[in-house]
């Protein structure tokens, strides 16, 4: 608060011009973010992942290997100049499969997180704003979902629906939303008591205006932070289902399924599961570090 205070009647000329707020704010955020090595590492990993997800098919040396091409004469070859990550039990190039699998992984992460937000955020807002038996019902159902380990529930759902990548995403989405209800409801409850919400009501703002103009925008930062971390967790969840044979089915290039198939060839042909494993590890790490960094920047308590 170093800008000059102007008393009524004073000449306004004394105030120094200030750069546009959005510009200064963004610069401050970037500075805070870039100060942390781990945040920058997260950003780099996520950027790399997104790049591969978009351009994977063009980067892959043997793109047809990702979709079930079989070359038994070169099966289970160790990493070499031609096949950097080696080849698997049917002679497919693992590097190609990992690169092309990134897109699947991104789809899974976006779908699961997106559906969870679409279900969870409105329910959280309703529970926080309305109160009464409606809120009570929403929150108790949320509690029930939260009390069951997510992956176990997802396994049960996929078990009922049948294995497959779509069903795996659906199952993960169904177990992912309660976290958002919790987050948004708590945030809404505290925002509802902010004086500026009272002030808006005194100005004649109805419940919808209060909700969409005054409450929701102030909930966005924690939602963004949670979503970026959940991207990583959802990818891990999908990989776990794939590993258990409940997600994507071989030869579909999904990292979890690749590890699962490669498991049979451990430890002698380690590269079959090692490289998809590293890919999952780096991606999940990247999203988590990114989320941590965003929290530091967006969390109002830091201001």
């Amino acid at each position: 608060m170093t800008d000059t205070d102007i008393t009524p009647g004073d000449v306004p000329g004394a105030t120094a011009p200030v750069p546009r707020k959005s510009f200064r704010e963004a610069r401050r955020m970037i500075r805070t973010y870039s100060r942390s090595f781990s945040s920058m590492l997260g950003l780099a990993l996520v950027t790399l992942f997104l790049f591969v997800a978009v351009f994977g098919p063009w980067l892959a040396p043997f793109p047809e290997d990702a979709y079930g091409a079989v070359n038994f004469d070169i099966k289970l070859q160790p990493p070499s100049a031609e096949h950097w990550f080696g080849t698997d039990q049917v002679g497919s190039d693992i590097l190609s499969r990992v690169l092309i699998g990134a897109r699947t992984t991104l789809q899974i992460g976006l779908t699961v997180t997106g559906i969870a937000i679409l279900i969870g955020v409105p329910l959280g807002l309703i529970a926080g704003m309305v109160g009464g038996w409606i809120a009570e019902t929403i929150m108790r159902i949320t509690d029930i979902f939260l009390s069951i380990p997510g992956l176990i529930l997802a396994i049960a759902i996929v078990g009922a629906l049948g294995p497959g990548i779509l069903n795996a995403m659906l199952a993960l989405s169904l177990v992912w939303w309660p976290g958002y209800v919790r987050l948004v409801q708590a945030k809404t409850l505290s925002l509802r008591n902010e004086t500026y919400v009272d002030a808006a009501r005194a100005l004649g703002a109805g419940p919808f205006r209060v909700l969409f103009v005054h409450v929701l925008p102030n909930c966005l930062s924690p939602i963004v932070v949670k979503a970026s971390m959940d991207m990583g967790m959802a990818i891990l969840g999908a990989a776990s289902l794939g590993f258990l044979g409940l997600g994507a089915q071989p030869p579909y290039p999904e990292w979890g399924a690749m590890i699962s198939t490669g498991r049979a060839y451990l430890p002698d042909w380690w590269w079959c599961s090692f490289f998809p494993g590293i890919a999952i590890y780096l991606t999940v790490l990247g999203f988590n570090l990114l989320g941590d960094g965003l929290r530091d920047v967006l969390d109002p308590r830091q201001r």
Partner: protein
Amino acid sequence: MLEIENLKVHFPLPSGQTVRAVDGLTLKIAPGETMGLVGESGSGKSTVGKAALRLVDSTSGVIRIGDLDVTKARGRQMRKLRSRAQMVFQDPHSSLNPRMTIRRAVAEGLILNTSLRGKALRDKVAEMLEAMGLPAQFHDRFPHELSGGQKQRVCIARALALDPELLVLDEPTSALDVSVQAQILRVLRSLHEARPELTQLFISHNLAVVRFLCQSVAVMYLGRIVEMGPVDRVFDAPSHPYTKALLSAVPVPEATRRPDRIRLQGDIPSPTALPTGCAFHTRCPIAKKDVCNVQEPPRIELQDGRLVRCHFALGSAPE
């Protein structure tokens, strides 16, 4: 202008108890008058202000702003209430949405209640902010880029933009430093001349500030008014023992300590369990057994027009 009759605002607690925040309050403010509503925490003074704007629902009683019955207002009448009565809150830091520029904050009430749009709206907002001493280069800033005093001036501009007849000010300076408080007080006082028709209810625990700003004052204790009248009369010759104690407890900015001190013993009783009879009898230095703890004191009108709720207001103090 503002008329409150036998207002009660009770809040049920989860424990089954009831907080009797306001318990039978009656007051009247003339058009253009500034009335101070003073009391300590738990006296219910803020609740009165919020009830006047329907930010809390009242349990019983009548609140009228002009010819508008606030407690019964619905739909269109509620809209009318919004342009008739506005409020400025205690903490300027939390009264502004952190994600809105101050231009938008001031525009919000106008968008909701008037047909002003586009350039006309922009001009009106700019005029309101400039009248509060915030020139154009501030208008696109966000609240966290302003100082506390500047934020509070934005809040006043926002409230006045709707041209209200009643302005409720809930401790508008108590979160501010002394020199900033003086700025805001001067702004509010200048409203007396700039908007002579504006009625103000100034809620505060700071008696010195009330003396500077208000023409009349109402002293609250546990949900009721114990003394009400012209500010000079109440401050210079308080009649109710609580008013006397309150005034003699004010730290006065001068070197000599005041000799005529009345010190209350103990704390304010909880508004969940109001004392019987006169609510003040548990701390009152002149309370008389079998009178004050049994009978509710009547509302006595003194010769100078003051209203006092005390059994001994007319001088028949106990021996």
